[in-house]
């Protein structure tokens, strides 16, 4: 079984840097894509939504996780979804959300989109393999 027809779903439950989860998820996703597999969606939940803010300024001599995800998404047309409920709790907003809730700014990073938990459930159903990265 070559497995090339299998679709992957990735769930990231932790934010960047504090836990290795996001790094592990990124490395796994990159490896899967490089092997020619399809990654149906990467869903960011719990603190994972913090991977999707464009306002981080990590040290120059270390990896920029948000940029890594954005670049991977761009290169492979990857669907990066940030859960709207978890994002609202933690202050990750796109322009529409910011306006809707009367906030004076938005911070969603390029390549990420904010959507509902239904996107996670859909990924769990559509993907042949769901891999969870958390703490």
């Amino acid at each position: 079984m070559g497995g090339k027809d299998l679709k992957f779903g990735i769930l990231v439950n932790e934010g960047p840097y504090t836990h290795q989860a996001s790094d592990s998820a990124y490395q796994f996703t990159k490896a899967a894509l490089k092997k020619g597999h399809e990654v149906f969606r990467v869903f960011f939940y719990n603190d994972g939504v913090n991977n999707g803010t464009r306002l981080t300024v990590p040290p120059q001599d270390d990896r920029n996780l948000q940029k890594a995800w954005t670049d991977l998404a761009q290169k492979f047309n990857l669907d990066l979804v940030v859960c709207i409920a978890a994002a609202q709790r933690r202050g990750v907003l796109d322009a529409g959300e910011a306006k809707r809730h009367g906030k004076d700014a938005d911070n969603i990073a390029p390549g990420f989109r904010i959507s509902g938990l239904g996107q996670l459930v859909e990924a769990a159903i559509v993907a042949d393999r769901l891999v969870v990265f958390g703490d």
Partner: protein
Amino acid sequence: MSTLHTINKSPFERSSFSSALTHLRSADALLLIEDAVLAARRGSAFAVDLEKAARSCAIYVLAPDLAARGIEETNLIPKAKVVDYGGFVDLVIQHQRTQAWL
């Protein structure tokens, strides 16, 4: 139909390692990633548990996580097989479901 169990926390920090081991079924596989890799170091207090699990399940350890923590691949329990991220992907494909013990 088998399960790939992933464990990411050190057994010295979290009980997820021990819990995972009590829920393994024959022909399942166990993959240690992140801090959990230190369980597979020869002489670790949890090496015995891993060796027992190895009787019915394949035990894998993620190489980049070992290297990051200064653990040489030659210094693991004999039954542990080392894989890279590509191997991790292959393991996920090989088993019908992946269960993360966080």
